[in-house]
């Protein structure tokens, strides 16, 4: 078989260059920056603090709120400021990707707010955002069952391809973002756009899980660098 070349020369199961920095926002209780190739997400955690809006307060647990936002200058065509249908859906699935990891019942009646700003977008912004948010929650000292690592995978020609970047999103037969808690072997985010047999879909999910395991080690390493002396 002819060697398969990706647009940036990566192997099929290779992540884009990953950068994780912990504690990048001085004002926040916890924060992190995650770059995956040319995609960069910054997450800041505020809380547990008093719940706003107050009517959303819950008596026996904390309420996790997530806000995904793309900076207007983050893409080729300017992103209109303010929430879009896309950003509202991503905020929802991001929250649901993080909730399984956080011990929310430790902080009744409070709110934990996670703000995710995408300052540069080149495919995989929701997964980069989840990676940053998970590290930021840990940085804020919020008790967690595990870190959540996330990456997308796809299928280009006959190959299962990890961490779709740039133009790969346009040629893949499917785009499957996955978020994963490696210690618990639990999937916390799963979405798909595409057209693929169930067997192949499973293989793409497994490809993404392998990527999550690599990212998980990088997340832990970044947290250790800040917190362990």
């Amino acid at each position: 078989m002819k060697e398969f070349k990706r647009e940036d020369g990566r192997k099929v199961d290779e992540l884009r260059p990953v950068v994780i920095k912990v504690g990048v926002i001085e004002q926040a209780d916890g924060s992190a920056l995650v770059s995956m190739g040319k995609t960069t997400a910054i997450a800041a955690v505020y809380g547990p603090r008093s719940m706003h809006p107050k009517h959303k307060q819950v008596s026996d647990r904390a309420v996790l709120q997530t806000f995904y936002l793309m900076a207007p200058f983050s893409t080729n065509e300017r992103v209109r400021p303010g929430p879009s249908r896309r950003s509202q859906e991503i905020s929802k699935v991001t929250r649901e990707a993080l909730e399984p990891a956080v011990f929310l019942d430790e902080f009744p009646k409070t709110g934990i707010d996670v703000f995710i700003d995408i300052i540069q977008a080149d495919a995989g912004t929701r997964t980069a955002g989840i990676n940053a948010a998970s590290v930021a929650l840990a940085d804020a000292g919020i008790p967690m069952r595990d870190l959540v690592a996330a990456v997308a995978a796809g299928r280009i020609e006959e190959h299962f391809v990890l961490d779709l970047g740039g133009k790969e999103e346009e040629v893949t037969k499917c785009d499957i973002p996955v978020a994963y808690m490696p210690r618990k072997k639990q999937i916390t985010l799963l979405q798909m756009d595409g057209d693929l047999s169930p067997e192949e879909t499973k293989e793409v999910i497994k490809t993404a899980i392998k990527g999550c395991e690599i990212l998980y080690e990088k997340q832990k390493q970044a947290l250790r660098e800040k917190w362990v002396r």
Partner: protein
Amino acid sequence: MIIQKQFISGLASRKMRIDKRGQDEFRDITIETGVIAKAEGSARVKIGKTEVIAGVKMGVGTPFPDRPDEGVLMIGAEFSPIASPDFEKGPPAEDAIELARVVDRGIRESGAIDMKKLCIKEKEKTWMVFVDIHILNHAGNLIDAAGLASIAALLTAKMPEYDEEAGTVSYEKKHKKLPMKFKPVPITVFKMSDSLFLDPNLEEEDVTSVSLTVTTKDDGNIVALQKGGSQSLSLEEIEKAFELSLKKGAEIRKLLEKHI
């Protein structure tokens, strides 16, 4: 309420349900098409007491610059306050946006509509297809009901006529069907007490904390996935959800065929 929740979870741990259904058994499904005379296509779907109307409207507009030779598809959803004490008026909330986007993905990604056939003049004029989903009564499992109503409305829609010289659309004459290729059907699998079930009623939805919507098309391929809820799933559970959705999706597709 808490007692009822515990009762439902207790039953679920023995793979039983409050209304005696089997794990993969739907409530009664009825599909009626052509229920709105003014719409180009429409369908009312009932699943048990859940009731949804989808309407198709069409117009002529400009194609998107990145798809100059294709039609435009827009899918929206309204959770009208008439349908539930939990729905509030105002712009679509998170759940309505998610529902519309999940239904949209299934129809778009499956290539259900032959979008190239909707183009009138490349870069300049194309048909725009609007599918609007209106929830009439919320008694659980809205995504499956909305997805089924949307595809039923599209499959039975008749296109209005476009007068190229005058640049006007005539809604009086409708005869041509939309160029449809596939019938994507979303099936939501939900987890209660570590077991997987289909078609939750409202009481069961209150107990469940994680679900997976799997949209399949005629050839058995998966075209869209969406995990929902605050808990997680194992890979084994996801594989099982694929099987359940494929089987039920094929059954519902047969039911759909009787209406087109």
